[in-house]
């Protein structure tokens, strides 16, 4: 509402819901942080904290797809829940299309929920088993004030949009659908409030590969039709490459690398990103992996390693990595084409022996 576009927009069509102008990012996340307390003892004191999301900043432009990758336990899903306000953040700000979220002057929470919707991984447990899917889809609009008739008509239209015949499926219950069909229902439900940003948390991970391709195509179509912005969280690096414009790599609650998808995949800067990419399975039986590129599990986020959090598993570890945490740079001031990595090896003068020469050598 306050900022106007200075340059021609990256998005195609003019959207009446647009408030901040086309150059204003859809969502800005500024220094968001969430520590979960671990309580113990008779007094139930906090004895430690799980640093699930630790000072993360990024933005998502209008109409783009931001992929978020990382191992289990790196905080991807907590981050998604923080963005949705399903858990409260400890610190940091969310700016939705130019307006602060959840503060006195900004967008109220129900406004956020209308603009931001989420699709979860487990397509079955995220649907109410006792509601026919038509009612599951119509539920959100009803809560937001639509009449039952309008909401139902809308639900049927949405079912057609996600490729389910309304007259066949409307009255079915979730257990009568296959995994791919259930995930289509979840997508339809997320679209029911006409959101602008969809958070897809491992939305295709539980599907068969052939169904996964159908759902990915559907997501691409919907994005164009409805002028959507996606945050796509997944641990499947092939899928993230296919669907994303930019990629954010997370490790133990922090961003270790962010940049345009092709730069991340063709020229990864951070050793963690390099290792993750090496974990992709080749389809050629001649190219078998003999040793796992990443050994062990990520360290415990209760007590993350000092300095660079990846140093315990990093093949290029030096003293400076244990002593000092490498910075990522100012993500919010960087442009969408910038490729940033939180590693001493890419920062000139950091004290790492490989530092002056970028790894791309």
């Amino acid at each position, binding site marked *: 509402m306050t900022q106007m576009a200075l340059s021609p927009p990256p998005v195609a069509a003019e959207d009446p819901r647009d408030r901040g102008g086309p150059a204003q990012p859809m969502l800005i996340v500024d220094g968001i942080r969430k520590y979960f307390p671990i309580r113990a003892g008779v007094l139930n004191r906090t004895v430690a904290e799980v640093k699930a999301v630790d000072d993360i900043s990024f933005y998502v432009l209008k109409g783009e797809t931001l992929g978020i990758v990382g191992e289990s336990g790196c905080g991807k899903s907590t981050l998604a829940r923080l963005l949705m306000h399903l858990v409260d953040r400890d610190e940091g700000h969310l700016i939705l299309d130019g307006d602060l979220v959840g503060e006195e002057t900004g967008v109220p929470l129900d406004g956020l929920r209308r603009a931001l919707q989420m699709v979860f991984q487990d397509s079955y447990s995220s649907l109410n088993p006792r509601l026919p899917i038509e009612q599951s889809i119509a539920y959100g609009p009803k809560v937001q004030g639509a009449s039952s008739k309008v909401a139902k008509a809308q639900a049927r239209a949405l079912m057609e949009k996600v490729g389910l015949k309304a007259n066949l499926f409307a009255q079915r219950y979730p257990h009568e659908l296959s995994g791919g069909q259930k995930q289509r229902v979840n997508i339809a439900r997320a679209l029911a409030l006409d959101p602008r940003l969809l958070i897809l948390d491992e939305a295709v991970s539980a599907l068969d590969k052939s169904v996964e*391709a159908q759902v990915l195509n559907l997501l*691409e179509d919907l994005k164009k039709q409805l002028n959507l912005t996606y945050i796509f969280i997944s641990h499947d690096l092939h899928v993230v490459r296919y669907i994303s414009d930019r990629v954010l790599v997370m490790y133990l609650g922090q961003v270790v690398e962010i940049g345009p998808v092709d730069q991340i995949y063709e020229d990864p800067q951070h050793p963690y990103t390099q290792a993750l990419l090496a974990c992709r399975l080749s*389809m050629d*039986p001649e190219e078998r992996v003999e040793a796992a590129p990443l050994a062990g599990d990520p360290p415990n986020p209760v007590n993350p390693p000092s300095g660079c959090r990846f140093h315990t598993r990093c093949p290029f570890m030096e003293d400076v990595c244990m002593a000092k945490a490498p910075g990522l740079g100012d993500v919010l001031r960087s442009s969408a084409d910038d490729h940033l990595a939180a590693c001493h090896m890419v920062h000139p003068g950091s004290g790492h022996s490989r530092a002056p020469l970028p790894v791309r050598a």
Partner: protein
Amino acid sequence: MNDMTTPNLSGSQPLATPFVSVKDLRVRFVSREATVRAVNGVTFDLARGEVLCVIGESGSGKSVMMRSLLRLHPKKRTVIEGSMQVGEHDIGTVSDRVLSKLRGSTISMIFQEPMTALDPLYTIGDQIAETVRRHEGLGREAAWARALELLELVRVPSPERRLKAYPHELSGGLRQRAMIAVALSCRPSLLLADEPTTALDASVQIQVLVLLRRLQREMDMSMIFVTHDLGVAAQIADKVAVMYAGRIIEYGSVGDVLNRPQHPYTQAMLASTVKDQERVVPLEAIAGSPPDLRALPEGCSFLPRCAYAEPECAVAMPSETVDASRHMARCYRVGLEGKRLAFNGSALPPGGRATPAPMAAERAEMLGRSA
């Protein structure tokens, strides 16, 4: 039990003496409402020390087929026909007592979800020790010592501590390793693995695959590995069987099946797998969904989704075409060209995926029905 010599079960397979020999296996689940024909005539042989990957979508019957090898289905509602020979035992006919001896010792299984397969109320050590004591009659001390060895074998860090851990205290990767340790505790000759890496992260998946392959080689186990991920098959398989609607529709060495797929379904599966495609081009998804196993149509079961379908496909299921390297496909479009299989789909309109006109109406009707 471990170093038994396998009798030559079938004279028609001169390449190797099969350790596992499944012939015309059919499994139906009978209930009041319907009969589900989950497996419809599966035949394969597996040599000692060989890894067979069974690939297919959910509902293709791959897990049902594998569970039949341990007779894990509810007795009352399941009809199993055909023969399953593992070593000297005919699994279809052995008594329950013999079967319970085989389970966990000669034949062992790893499940997809370790959290539900392990008992939450017992420690990892208890669960490994229980298997060893039950099958090999070891004492408590000896069994625990063996459990420790096994955790070291599957490369669990600080194994002494993990023996006393409960399943919920371990990460997904460690839990899956613990389950592998349970499965290997009695040195099985045949290991069945039902999507053991599907629930794991890519980084852990590859660790588990490398581990399984190493153990399989060291212990000279035969392995049947069910997965829907072709990348996993490429990593671990010697032989690949592609299942659709309860039948093996393509079979061959991993190189043949993945690099020279013949059946349209295998081709479509490979094409639909996301792997460094151009981002602007939509994925070549396979339209429709797998057939309803309660009412399988006559003819080729892939017909409603096939881009190369022709009227003859609706008449009967195509028979097997096998080439010199034992690459097999069941499709009317596949023939022999010299010593190799050759797919004869070149007469199709450009683009290949277009529907042949005379079939379009029927296909649409069938798709509507299956949806």
